[in-house]
């Protein structure tokens, strides 16, 4: 485990350093002089991990310190020392100067140091670098007399700057105050970004004027005094955002008779940046009736006039409003309103407020509608007209905001004098070039016949020959239903074949039918149902369905190690007739007769050549977010595996960025989303950076043919689901766990031979406890305070469950029997998720417990509540939780049910999902089976915990605790 931190150096340069998990015992520390940080990663290692980075020498930092050692950061996930006072002490850290790619730090780190965590301070510096790059690309920089570039912060940029300042951790500050650190680093980053851009241009600029040449990257030079003075005056207060800003509001004067005349008014307001809820109209400023503004400015009228003068430089029409003594508004005709709109982004960027009518929020985009007519999707698999090569009749039309336009409407739009037109009762801004391109396209043949495959392809961005994005799919028949995402609802339902030993809920049958239909088309599918909706069962039903028709090549299932056991068990349960091979461990020869080959991402990457040389009927990626980074080795390796059909399963298709969605969907249907660069430019950037609704709508149009997502809260699904669902999550052991487990078993069996029957009881109970601790985590058994990450299959699975839950905004309760394990988990999980993790155990006094419970119930961010089963069993309500995880087993159904009922109470409106973690092929699974087999006896047999185990014979005990080969994951 490594954690990368960042801070602002005295020069203003952002620097990085890393903590390692190898915390040595505290050494002696005397005096106040800075000494080397005892568990920092060498600068050369960190520099080698990041492109363009270079060691920057040791730098002294004041860090929180207890006793003779710096306190590990919480991201390291270590428990804080119990004793000692917290103080600041100077430590030198091996610092690294990041390259020009600081903004991409998270991506670079994910490739080079996948196990490392990004500290809050480093993530903050990366965000600052991205902000600086954005400012520079928009020219929001000004030169200083010393020929350096500084960032200009106005309008939305000032707001963003303030947001970053609020989010700044103290660790990032270095020796500066918060505001100075940010300003220094931002200017440093902006200067570097400008120089990098100018250098990329090649030829020398501005020869002849030494100061300008220095700004362009030439030899350093300062401005002459006269130039320096003039610069000062020229820049005025542009570098510092005004405290009060000018707002321009465009609105429509609604007048029944006249819809085309003057019709629009642009009125002026003042708004203090510190309190945007205060908005004072210009007329009130002139009458000087508004005392409110005096909190922020000496002379509101100066701010108004000065703002207007500045805005008029960018938007010359505004000068017309300034020919009166006390300007307060400007009347505009429709053409003028349009001209204002075209200048609005520049005005907003310069820091002025631009307000538009509320209906502006969702602009209507001009696009194409593809109307297709084909047969009904009814008799899917027997119908020879269904297939990718099936021909369908099609017709192009123009669409506005996703609605096709009639001929009359088209004529009206084509005749409009300005691009701002009234259409279907609202105002629309049309792009004349796009309209012309669309009309030309329709004129050159707007209909005909194409194949279903072509119909899918024309949805792609920047498709040659299609001048506008396709924003609507209409018509009748299966192609139309496929294109507009209605297929799952209109398909006639396929039932699972008799070979499928289970029942599917109605929505799962719809999912199966959808998968089977896309399978018959050979179109890849991404099933993105919420966690817990049974994606595995739907895929197994698909396999049973396809294989009922006759033999086929095998299907390859790739999943994370943590769910390998679940696949094995569920395949055995639902499709006992299918031959399943687990491709994992040392012996990895493919079974030629297997129907289903299940393997892990790690093994698949290792055996890519073998897998690529085999013919697969289908490849299924479970938890497909594992290939979210399309450039990473495993994603590249899996793309080379040939398969007739591809399926991706994920509960969280977009964890962070839209590029991840591209990576998953491009695996499913290579090429159907276009290249990543185009996807970024058309969707990712507009949606992520500009919250562009139209681009988001286009992306939905593009992906809905082969992306099916249902959430637990969809009305149709919620009705199908029981309010409380229980699912056993199988985990494997790591090699370290398996070794420890075997050692405990051997020790127990050895000592049983030597023990009297009186001591036997204690010996068995203690051994079972140790085995359960090993299943939880090696550190739980050893109690050595070693770091947790990556050493326990159960912990990995727990993290995945919590990841999915928290990403969906759903709080979770986690129960363990062992207070000691809870104490280990609490700091680890808090570091791993950056979400509130509360821990309630028997030692928490009453008042503190009530505060913990109230905090969890009221928290706006979804959090995790850890409880030791004993403490959690007594009359507290935690109904905010939507997940309950039993980390280890009590083996008493009543006790476990009571715990789950903390979250699920009568009258509860939300449903609850219960996850029981169980280590495959260990004592945990075998006792569970015993308890299940004797369910009617459960109360009597296991009513008092584990005492009954001591009555078993040694042979029965040996069988119970035996370690099966399948238990070991790696």
């Amino acid at each position, binding site marked *: 485990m490594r954690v990368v931190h960042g801070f602002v150096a005295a020069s203003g340069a952002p620097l990085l350093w890393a903590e390692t998990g190898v915390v040595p015992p505290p050494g002696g520390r005397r005096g106040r002089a800075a000494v080397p940080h005892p568990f920092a990663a060498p600068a050369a290692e960190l520099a080698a991990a990041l492109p363009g980075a270079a060691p920057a020498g040791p730098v002294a930092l004041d860090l929180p310190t207890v006793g003779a050692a710096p306190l590990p950061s919480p991201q390291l996930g270590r428990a804080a020392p119990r004793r000692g006072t917290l103080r600041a002490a100077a430590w030198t850290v091996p610092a690294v100067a990041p390259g020009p790619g600081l903004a991409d730090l998270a991506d670079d780190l994910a490739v080079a140091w996948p196990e490392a965590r990004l500290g809050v301070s480093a993530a903050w510096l990366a965000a600052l670098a991205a902000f600086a790059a954005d400012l520079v690309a928009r020219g929001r920089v*000004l030169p200083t007399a010393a020929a350096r570039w500084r960032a*200009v912060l106005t309008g939305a940029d000032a707001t963003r700057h303030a947001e970053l300042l609020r989010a700044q951790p103290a660790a990032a500050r270095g020796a500066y105050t918060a505001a100075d650190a940010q300003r220094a680093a931002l200017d440093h980053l902006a200067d570097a970004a400008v120089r990098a851009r100018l250098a990329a241009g090649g030829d020398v600029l*501005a020869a002849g004027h030494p100061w300008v040449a220095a700004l362009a990257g030439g030899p350093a030079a300062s401005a002459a005094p006269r130039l320096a003075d003039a610069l000062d005056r020229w820049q005025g207060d542009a570098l510092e955002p005004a405290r009060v800003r000018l707002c321009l*509001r465009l609105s429509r004067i609604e007048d029944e008779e006249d819809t085309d005349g003057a019709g629009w008014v642009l009125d002026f307001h003042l708004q203090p940046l510190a309190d945007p809820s205060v908005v004072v109209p210009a007329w009130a400023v002139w009458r000087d009736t508004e005392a409110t503004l005096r909190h922020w400015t000496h002379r509101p009228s100066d701010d108004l006039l000065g703002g207007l003068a500045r805005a008029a430089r960018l938007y010359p029409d505004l000068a017309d409003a300034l020919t009166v003594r006390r300007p307060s508004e400007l009347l505009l005709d429709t053409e003028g309103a349009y001209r204002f709109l075209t200048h609005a*982004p520049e005005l*907003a960027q310069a820091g002025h407020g631009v307000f538009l009518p509320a209906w502006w*929020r969702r602009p209507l985009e001009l696009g194409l509608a593809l109307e297709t007519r084909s047969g009904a999707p009814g008799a899917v698999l027997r119908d020879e007209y269904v297939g990718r090569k099936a021909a369908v009749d099609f017709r192009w039309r123009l669409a506005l905001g996703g609605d096709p336009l009639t001929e009359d409407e088209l004529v009206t739009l084509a005749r409009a004098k300005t691009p701002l037109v009234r259409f279907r009762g609202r105002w629309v801004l049309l792009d004349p070039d796009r309209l012309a391109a669309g009309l030309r396209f329709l004129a050159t043949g707007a209909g005909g016949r194409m194949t279903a495959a072509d119909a899918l392809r024309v949805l792609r961005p920047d498709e040659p020959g299609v001048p506008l994005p396709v924003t609507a799919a209409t018509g009748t028949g299966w192609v139309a239903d496929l294109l507009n995402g209605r297929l799952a609802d209109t398909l006639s339902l396929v039932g699972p074949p008799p070979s499928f030993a289970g029942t599917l809920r109605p929505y799962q049958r719809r999912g199966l039918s959808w998968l089977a239909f896309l399978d018959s088309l050979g179109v890849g599918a991404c099933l993105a149902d919420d966690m817990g909706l049974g994606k595995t069962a739907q895929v197994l039903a698909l396999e049973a369905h396809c294989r009922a028709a006759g033999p086929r090549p095998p299907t390859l299932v790739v999943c994370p190690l943590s769910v390998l056991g679940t696949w094995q068990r569920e395949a055995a349960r639902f499709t006992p007739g299918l031959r399943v091979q687990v491709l994992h461990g040392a012996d990895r020869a493919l079974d030629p007769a297997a129907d289903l080959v299940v393997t892990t991402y790690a093994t698949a990457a290792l055996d890519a050549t073998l897998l690529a040389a085999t013919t697969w009927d289908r490849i299924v990626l479970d938890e497909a977010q594992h290939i979210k980074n399309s450039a990473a080795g495993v994603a590249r390796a899996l793309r080379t595996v040939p398969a007739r059909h591809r399926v991706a399963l994920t509960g969280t298709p977009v964890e962070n960025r839209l590029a991840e969605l591209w990576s998953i969907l491009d695996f499913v249907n290579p090429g159907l989303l276009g290249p990543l660069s185009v996807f970024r430019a058309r969707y990712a950037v507009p949606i992520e950076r500009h919250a562009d609704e139209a681009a988001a709508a286009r992306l939905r149009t593009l992906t809905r043919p082969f992306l099916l997502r249902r959430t637990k809260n969809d009305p149709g699904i919620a009705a199908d689901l029981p309010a409380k669902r229980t699912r056993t999550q199988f985990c494997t052991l790591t090699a370290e766990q398996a070794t420890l487990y075997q050692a405990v078993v051997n020790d127990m069996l050895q000592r049983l031979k030597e023990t009297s029957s009186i001591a036997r009881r204690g010996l068995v109970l203690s051994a079972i406890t140790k085995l359960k601790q090993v299943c939880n985590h090696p550190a739980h058994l050893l109690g050595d305070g070693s770091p947790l990450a990556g050493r326990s299959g159960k912990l990995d699975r727990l993290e995945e469950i919590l990841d999915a839950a928290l990403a969906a905004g759903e709080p979770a309760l986690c129960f363990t029997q062992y207070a000691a394990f809870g104490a280990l988990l609490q700091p680890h999980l808090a570091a791993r998720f950056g979400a509130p993790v509360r821990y309630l155990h028997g030692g928490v006094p009453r008042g503190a417990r009530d505060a913990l419970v109230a905090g969890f119930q009221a928290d706006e961010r979804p959090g995790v509540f850890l409880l030791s089963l004993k403490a959690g069993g007594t009359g507290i309500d935690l109904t905010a939780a939507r997940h309950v995880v039993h980390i280890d087993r009590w083996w008493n159904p009543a006790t476990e049910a009571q715990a789950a009922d903390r979250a699920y109470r009568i009258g509860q409106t939300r449903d609850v999902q219960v996850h029981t973690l169980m280590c495959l092929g260990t004592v945990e699974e075998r006792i569970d089976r015993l308890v299940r087999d004797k369910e009617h006896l459960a109360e009597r047999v296991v009513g008092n915990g584990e005492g009954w185990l001591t009555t078993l014979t040694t042979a029965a005990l040996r069988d119970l605790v035996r370690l099966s080969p399948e238990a070991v994951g790696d």
Partner: protein
Amino acid sequence: MTDEPRWSEPFVAMIESLGMGPRLARGRRDARAGHVRSLTINSSLVVAQVRGPEETVAHRARIAVRAYGAAEWARIEDHLAAEARYAADLLVGRMPADIARVCAALGLPLLPESIGDIAMDCTCDDPVRPCPHLAATCYALAASLDTDPFGMVAWRGRSREELLARLRPAAPAAPSSTPSPAAVDLASFWDAPPPAAPGADAGALGVQVAIVGLPGVVRRPDALLDELGPLVVDGADITGLLRPLYRRLGP
């Protein structure tokens, strides 16, 4: 929008109409070479210290015009106060583009229109006026006015602040204080501070929308230069020199 006038143009034209080509050419060279060591503009009087490389002492060159009286300025100011754009420009440190025309139309030109409007003297012995020092001073004055056109108003007896004060309604107010930075809390050293409670916004005004991808939308990386207006120093058009740099910043 670099269409702002070179303010000094009429003044230079007037001087050059005197028909003293060689002497003025030398004055222009001397001014460029930095012989004018200082130049101050006060009500009615421009005073410069001029010293060539071969001279042992600096000479004081003075150019005088008639400063306008209170009544004359009131006529100008009444006229300018009728339109907010004059005060608006002055507020952001800019000289209104048509101010020279407006003043001339009122019979109160800002710059002297003929040689008869100015009086010149110099501490040197050269019997001819303008002497080389005065010639250099004229050109230095011209360059100074291009950089800071408020010199024209100052020469006629008004500072920018006085002019502005007379163009806008006065309004006193109290200054506000700034908060002091908080000390570092070691317990939360590594983490981001908790998010602030969301404040109210100006929803009443309508929506603030990022307008992207609309036809004809103006997006230029050099827009900031237009926002700030032209910058001319010692005859060099700084804005013009910076513009190609800004244009390269865009995507």
